[in-house]
């Protein structure tokens, strides 16, 4: 069986600028991969190339073996790649529940006709979507916010709602773009546990962009480091932390002295 | 049961709409209280007082007011005073229909006057028929206004001639009197009056053996006609037929001259207005248009009307005003002759109108409820209109 997500020498050019060069990534089923690098290194560009927001200038993106280069985001989403956004992009005026229900729509089979004539198919679909959406809210601990308009949620919960929404599209690969941004230390620890739970529970692969080293090192099984669009290193967190290139480009000397960057949830409390 | 709720709301909205409307007679009642139905005959007028053609509504409304005040000064009709109620239709057919319905059913007018434009008269005509209230249109020249399929609409009349006649008049005049062979047409494509006249003119002129070398169009509200005029000029016509309203014709004349076209322009009754000369500033010298009347007509009746209109409103009445005045006169005259003031009685009286001396010619209504009357051809010299000839139907 082919990997759920595969990027083969993907290059993105904007005008003369090479935002991403020869990017390679093979996600195995159930794998947790971290993508790190300084700001502007091309992490989000990589996300956009994978999820169809951009069409790669060169290279191939394959989802479950199928070439999806020229496809639009919703088609790629339907094939099983979901994402969150760096700057939260919820549907601000919709309720938490509706945000998730929109995502459930990716797997809907009924059409406008069914909705207008209230066919039996429409009704079963609606109740299925409702049940699914409520389940995802529950998983993300947002059930109590079900009917609240999403822009009124606190920051951390908006982040979680975005993850719930991405999960609701029923992905095989989940891409999280800085999920911990703006969370406090305690929330970050919870998030870490949550990411692991999601992987275990849904058996999906997760790709995380994150600046918080403790989080990304703690949660990832494998790390990719980007700098100026180039992959400068990849491997297990332990190895990455000691990689001199990474230290020079990104981590800085401070990290050499640290003994326990990857902390366990218990340790944090 | 969300849809049930939606439904309730819809029903509620309709009910509210209904209720609000129900309060209206109270508002209308005020007017009626001021002019109790017992000794007043109400005449309705649907006019475009606002919108693109507001100037026409204004003209007819002014003239009708004049006619009614004169009639009242002369003792009214059957011992009762006349009152006018005018509703604005913004120049829209839908609005004209609503306004006409309201005048007939709610205000209970005896006669309905209007509309100027054929498209709006067409919207009113069926309503007049259904409610058995006579409608007299002053200036709607489209043949279909008084027709319901092949039948003549029993309650719909007009005091003007119709497009086929007027178009033919100018075609004949151009071919026979002016001895021209090559003409061009510039029509207002968005205006039924203009399109109708242009079609009848073109058909007749070709039938007489002439040639239409160019047929161009514009849209009311355009400011610049040079593109069409350049194209026309390039075809070297001897005359340009511009069946449009004076609001556009003056500019067309000026621009034709600016481009060096020296021949005559020609048009229909829509040209008739003092504004035409004011704006054209001599650009239309040597041109001709067909009309219902000429305000030079020494007939005291005409001169009296022109003077009164000028005194009251400060401007020389245009053809629309003259015809509006005539429509009101025919209505008043018919009511005087009618056995009683019910719709059918007045209708019968109107139908019998014969050789009535209006300011815009003598009116005899034919079996199609069209006014059979002669047309005059007016020439423009030194920026003033001059009577040229009369063409009998």
């Amino acid at each position: 069986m082919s990997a759920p997500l595969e990027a083969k020498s993907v290059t993105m050019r904007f005008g003369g600028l090479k935002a991403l060069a020869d990017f390679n990534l093979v996600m195995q089923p159930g794998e947790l991969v971290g993508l790190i690098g300084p700001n502007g290194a091309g992490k989000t560009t990589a996300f956009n190339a994978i999820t169809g927001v951009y069409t790669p200038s060169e290279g191939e993106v394959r989802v479950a073996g199928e070439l999806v280069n020229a496809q639009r985001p919703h088609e790629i989403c339907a094939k099983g790649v979901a994402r969150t956004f760096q700057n939260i992009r919820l549907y601000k005026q919709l309720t938490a529940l509706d945000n998730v229900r929109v995502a459930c729509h990716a797997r809907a089979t009924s059409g406008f006709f069914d909705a207008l004539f209230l066919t039996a198919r429409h009704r079963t679909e609606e109740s299925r979507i409702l049940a699914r959406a409520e389940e995802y809210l529950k998983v993300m601990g947002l059930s109590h916010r079900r009917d609240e308009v999403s822009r009124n949620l606190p920051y951390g919960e908006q982040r979680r709602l975005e993850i719930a929404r991405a999960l609701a599209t029923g992905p095989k690969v989940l891409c999280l773009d800085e999920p911990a941004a703006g969370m406090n230390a305690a929330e970050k620890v919870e998030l870490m546990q949550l990411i692991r739970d999601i992987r275990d529970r849904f058996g999906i692969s997760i790709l995380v962009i994150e600046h918080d080293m403790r989080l990304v090192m703690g949660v990832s099984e494998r790390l990719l480091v980007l700098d100026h669009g180039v992959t400068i290193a990849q491997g297990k967190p332990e190895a990455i932390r000691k990689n001199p290139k990474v230290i020079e480009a990104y981590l800085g000397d401070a990290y050499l002295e640290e003994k326990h960057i990857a902390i366990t949830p218990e340790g944090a409390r | 049961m969300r849809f049930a709720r939606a439904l309730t709301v819809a029903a509620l909205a309709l009910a509210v709409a209904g209720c609000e409307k129900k309060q209206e007679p109270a508002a209308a009642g005020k007017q009626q209280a001021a002019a109790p139905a017992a000794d007043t005959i109400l005449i309705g007028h649907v006019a475009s007082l606002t919108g693109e053609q507001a100037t026409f509504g204004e003209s007819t409304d002014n003239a009708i007011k004049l006619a009614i005040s004169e009639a009242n000064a002369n003792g009214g009709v059957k011992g009762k005073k006349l009152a006018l109620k005018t509703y604005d239709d913004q120049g829209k057919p839908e609005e004209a229909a609503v306004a006409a319905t309201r005048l007939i059913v709610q205000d209970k007018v005896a006669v309905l006057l209007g509309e100027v434009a054929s498209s709006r008269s067409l919207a009113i005509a069926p309503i007049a028929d259904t409610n058995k209230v006579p409608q007299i249109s002053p200036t709607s020249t489209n043949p279909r206004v008084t027709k319901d399929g092949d039948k003549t609409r029993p309650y719909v009349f007009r005091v003007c001639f119709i497009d086929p006649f007027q178009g033919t008049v100018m075609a004949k005049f151009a071919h026979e009197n002016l001895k021209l062979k090559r003409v061009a047409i510039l029509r207002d494509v968005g205006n039924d009056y203009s399109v109708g006249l242009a079609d009848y003119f073109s058909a007749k002129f070709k039938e007489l053996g002439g040639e239409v070398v160019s047929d161009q169009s514009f849209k009311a509200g355009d400011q610049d006609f040079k593109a069409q005029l350049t194209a026309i000029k390039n075809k070297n016509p001897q005359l340009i037929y511009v069946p449009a309203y004076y609001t556009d014709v003056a500019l067309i004349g000026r621009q034709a001259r600016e481009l060096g076209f020296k021949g005559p322009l020609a048009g229909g009754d829509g040209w008739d207005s003092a504004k035409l000369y004011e704006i054209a500033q001599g650009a239309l010298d040597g041109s001709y248009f067909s009309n219902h009347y000429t305000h030079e007509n020494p007939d005291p009746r005409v001169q009296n009307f022109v003077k009164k209109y000028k005194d009251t409103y400060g401007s020389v009445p245009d053809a629309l005003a003259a015809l509006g005045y005539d429509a009101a006169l025919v209505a008043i005259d018919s009511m005087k002759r009618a056995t009683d003031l019910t719709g059918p009685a007045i209708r019968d009286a109107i139908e019998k109108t014969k050789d009535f001396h209006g300011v815009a010619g003598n009116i005899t209504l034919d079996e199609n409820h069209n006014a059979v009357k002669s047309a005059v051809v007016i020439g423009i010299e030194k920026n003033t209109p001059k009577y040229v000839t009369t063409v009998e139907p």
Partner: protein
Amino acid sequence: MSRVTEFLQHFVNGLSVGTIYALIALGYTMVYGVLKLINFAHGDVYMVGAFSGYYLGIVGGGGEPSFFRAAYVTLGAMIACALLGFVIERFAYRPLRHRARLTALITAIGVSFLLEYGFQLSPWIRTPVQFPPGPSPRFFPPLIDFGGERSIEILGATMPKIDLLGLGVALGLMLVLQFIVYRTRFGTAMRAVSFDPQVAGLMGIPVNRIISWTFMLGSALAAAAGIINASSRPKIEPLFGLISGLKAFVAAVLGGIGSVPGAMAGGLLLGLTEEYVAGYTDSSYRDAIAFTVLILVLLVRPAGLFGRVTVEKV
């Protein structure tokens, strides 16, 4: 008339209409630039401009047609419309500045109706002038007398001198505007406000005042367009801004709304397109073809000729 002459004649005609569109379009585009608002009443400001000129020409007189009189009437109308623009912005748009854009669009439509239908009312002031003017068209008095021949000939194509003058004034105004926008402190501030009003405030730019001035500038240009148009086509009535306004709006979008050179190019392009369509094909489809050109241009360049499509950052 030879083919070349005919072509040239159409070019001259199209140019004269196009500059009018361009002048009005500039107002749309500038207001859009700073407020992201389609100032629906702009076409009516153009109409008011022509009427201000009419009243100034009648009442103020300035005596016989002369250059002085033309300048006086034009400047007077521009000032009057600048004031009108100020009032409209202050009372109809500013209270809705931070609301959804469609909201302000509705008040803009309201203002447009108010001006159109207000001017259509029959006069309640009768002396020394009649105001409101009422629906019937009025003759715009000649402001300038060229004496002798009214037109000149260029390679067989005729052009009225008044149109030539109008063209010159319009181009002059566009150059002045170009200078103001790209070379002055005010222009820089205006472009800054257009880019980001909040940050512009941080620079010490009085954002509200800049927006007011922009409105006034745009309205003054519309007034100038009104005068130029009315001098050449001396018929004015309360609704004559409707179609011109719409066309100018199309021109602004065609050029890329928010772009000053775009508005000029869009206006000229629309004027010439209409002219050639009407002159060489079926004039009854003139508007349809003009709109088709617009749609085709927008499909190829979704932000207009001079507009820049910014890729949304994800």
